[in-house]
């Protein structure tokens, strides 16, 4: 059976990382039908909102959620946090022509894009190395890209 991948929405992320009293259901099997993709920047933004008191939950709930994730709060592999590590940075930040670097990748290396959305685009940029559905990049861009770029324009 093919495993589907899906971009986690902000509501999904809040539900997964901020719910209290989460327990592991040991009766669950190891079979996975769908993997939720969570760009790391969504967790940083969630953390920022909590620190500024803009959500009802507390920062402690996120810290508990992060700890639970590291201990396996959900079935293994059900959520995958996509990080910006050295390898992904090297793959994504640069535009290449037949492996030769010919410049910066403008959708992310661009002052008109917010820092958070730059990171989001870099981690989700489709390449030979990405194993998730290619539509996830477009989906994230549709959800977050326009809004953030407008915010930048508005603020000057």
């Amino acid at each position, binding site marked *: 059976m093919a495993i589907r991948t899906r971009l986690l929405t902000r509501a999904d992320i809040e539900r997964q990382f901020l719910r209290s009293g989460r327990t592991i259901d040991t009766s669950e099997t190891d079979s996975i039908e769908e993997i939720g993709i969570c760009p790391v920047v969504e967790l*940083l933004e969630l953390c920022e909102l909590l*620190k500024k008191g803009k959500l009802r939950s507390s920062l402690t709930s996120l*810290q508990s959620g992060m700890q639970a994730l590291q201990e396996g709060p959900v079935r293994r592999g059900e959520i995958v946090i996509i990080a*910006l590590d050295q390898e992904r*940075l090297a793959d994504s930040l640069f535009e290449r022509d037949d492996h030769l670097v010919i410049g910066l990748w403008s959708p*992310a290396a661009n002052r008109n894009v917010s*820092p958070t959305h730059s990171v989001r685009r870099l981690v989700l940029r489709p390449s030979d190395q990405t194993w998730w559905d290619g539509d996830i990049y477009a989906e994230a861009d549709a959800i977050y890209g326009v809004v953030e770029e407008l915010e930048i324009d508005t603020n000057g």
Partner: protein
Amino acid sequence: MADVVLDTNILADFLAQFFGTARRGHASFAKQDTITGELARKINQIIRWHDWNLESGEDEEQYPGMVVASTFAFVEIGRKWTDIVKGRFQVTQMAAFVEQPPEWFAIEPVDENLVVAFCDAPTDVLMAHGEMRALEWADAVHIATAFGRGDDSLLAATDREMRQVSVLQDRLI
């Protein structure tokens, strides 16, 4: 050991010297732009230690740590390329550095461990004249990167707000 974490502007000035007068670490770094004399000495000490141990296989001096920057700092250089880099190095040079940094330089990921450290970074800072100022998201990433490198790691930062963060006072260079 005490790693030294560079923020975006200092990383750009570091790369400018690395590809310029410091000849990819074969010559000394010097006080210039945002690189202070103290930071240049620290970088030179780190390089010297690694070079010595690479050649001799002995470690007579105490391990001095590594020079560190977050992947995010490279993204910020890319976003503000013209203003920050000012023609001092090429995109291809930065790409080569990212792909294969020197053995004394670590590129730290933005990952779930950073999120945990990011939770501990403040959102507001009390400035010297008593005014509360918001700490930018990007600055908090550099602070979290320093937190993630251990309690004795140092942070090289230019931003005025970052330099006022109380928990960093003993760790600024």
